[in-house]
């Protein structure tokens, strides 16, 4: 190469760079062939990902056990799967039976709203090097999953279906920097826009500055036209900090999202919402205050002390 081959190497480098720039241009101009190539790749990869999920699960659990010392990851995974199945059943019934009472807080999310949901397993997580927050689930168009459908976990809003393939779908998580959802504050009904921030903390921008928000206020999804991409009433998160800088046009706040995104195992995709808007019915119950016993001490002066 050193003996006269440098010119050929440079020519090759230029051809490759021009090819990549050509691809970027085509993609940015919205040429559908490239989307088809990506979709085809995902269809090919889906069986490998399913097989990999099964093979890797013991190692993943081991890593999870190390990360979450004191917890049994396998048991948590089973409980999550059980919760999701029960929640899907409850969504098709109006009256939950008594056996589901212990899971009421989770199951009410879909049951009270009357959502028609389909459960799915998370089979792959996006690489950190992509700087986006996505997961792949094991159901797709063959199960009725379409683009821009709401994805839930037991705790609340997980994200939205970004792409749907035959037997898998790509879900953009609520933590993705590109993620935006219209929300309202339960109770006061103030509306705002929640944006993902790359972690479990998201930022809220209220649309007016008339009312005051406070830490602990619960945010619910406002819903979209024809319930896509978002069905109304889903718990999104709770306000953890309020930006009270003077002179700002609209209030902003930091929001702690409800779901545990690092431990997503089973999720549900909302196929259709109920006829009625659930309003504030899905607001999670706050922690019950523990009664503190009070002790009253009575003192009486001793007779010897008063004699002195």
């Amino acid at each position, binding site marked *: 190469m050193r003996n006269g081959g440098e010119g050929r190497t440079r020519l090759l480098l230029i051809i490759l*760079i021009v090819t990549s720039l050509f691809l970027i241009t085509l993609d940015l101009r919205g040429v559908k062939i490239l989307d088809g190539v990506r979709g085809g790749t995902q269809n090919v990869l889906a069986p*490998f990902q399913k097989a990999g999920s099964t093979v890797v699960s013991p190692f993943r659990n081991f*890593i999870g056990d190390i990360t979450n010392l004191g917890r049994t990851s396998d048991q948590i995974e089973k409980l999550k799967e059980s919760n999701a199945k029960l929640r899907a059943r409850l969504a098709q019934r109006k009256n939950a039976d008594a056996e589901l009472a212990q899971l009421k807080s989770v199951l009410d999310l879909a049951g009270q709203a009357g959502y028609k949901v389909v459960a799915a397993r998370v089979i792959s997580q*996006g*690489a950190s*090097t*992509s700087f986006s927050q996505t997961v792949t689930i094991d159901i797709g168009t063959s199960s009725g999953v379409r683009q821009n459908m709401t994805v839930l976990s037991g705790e609340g809003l997980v994200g939205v279906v970004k792409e749907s393939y035959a037997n898998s779908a790509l879900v953009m998580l609520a933590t993705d920097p*590109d993620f935006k959802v219209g929300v309202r504050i339960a109770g006061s009904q103030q509306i705002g826009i929640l944006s993902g*921030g790359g972690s479990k903390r998201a930022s809220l921008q209220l649309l007016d500055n008339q009312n005051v928000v406070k830490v602990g206020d619960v945010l619910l999804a406002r819903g979209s036209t024809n319930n896509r991409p978002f069905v109304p009433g889903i718990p999104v998160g709770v306000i953890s900090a309020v930006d009270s800088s003077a002179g700002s046009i609209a209030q902003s706040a930091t929001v702690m999202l409800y779901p545990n995104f690092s431990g997503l195992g089973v999720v549900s995709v909302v196929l259709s919402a109920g006829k009625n808007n659930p309003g504030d019915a899905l607001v999670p119950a706050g922690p019950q205050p523990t009664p503190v016993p009070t002790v009253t001490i009575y003192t009486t002066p001793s007779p010897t002390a008063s004699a002195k």
Partner: protein
Amino acid sequence: MLLRQFSISSLIFILVFIIQESVINQLRLPAGGFSLILLIALTWAALSNPTAGALTGFISGVLMDLSQSSSGPMGHWTLIMILACYAVAFLGSGNDNVRGTPVTNIFLVSFACVVTLTAFVIIGLLLGMSAGSFSKILITIFSNGIWALLVTPLILPLITRLHVVVLGDQARI
């Protein structure tokens, strides 16, 4: 790089891509884990001449662009990987200090990994990609650098042998 060598290299990288998508991404490693295909491509390039390096970058970049989790437009990773692998191959080509010492090679690949990710973010921001907060980007890049330092010593012997088999005795580690 003959057509036969190019084809075999492509098959190897397709296999690595499948492992990345179906195994590595499922492990949910601490701090976001690492990109196996990125590390193997850089290691492969460090053992190659610039021509093979650029082609390696092209193959691996196209595959990384095909990943569903890729946030940039098609061709984004291809562009970055062509430049990164060419640069790594150029640095390693004819320099015995780089190619002859495993430790130097490991540091070269880890440093290249950090630079590649940084370039990916910068080009991505120019193309309108959202990459999250500055601190999140820093943590991701830094943790990938740490993972590269840990993983590269494990894959280097295997990649060196594969490289010798596919491209001939160009590697001397």
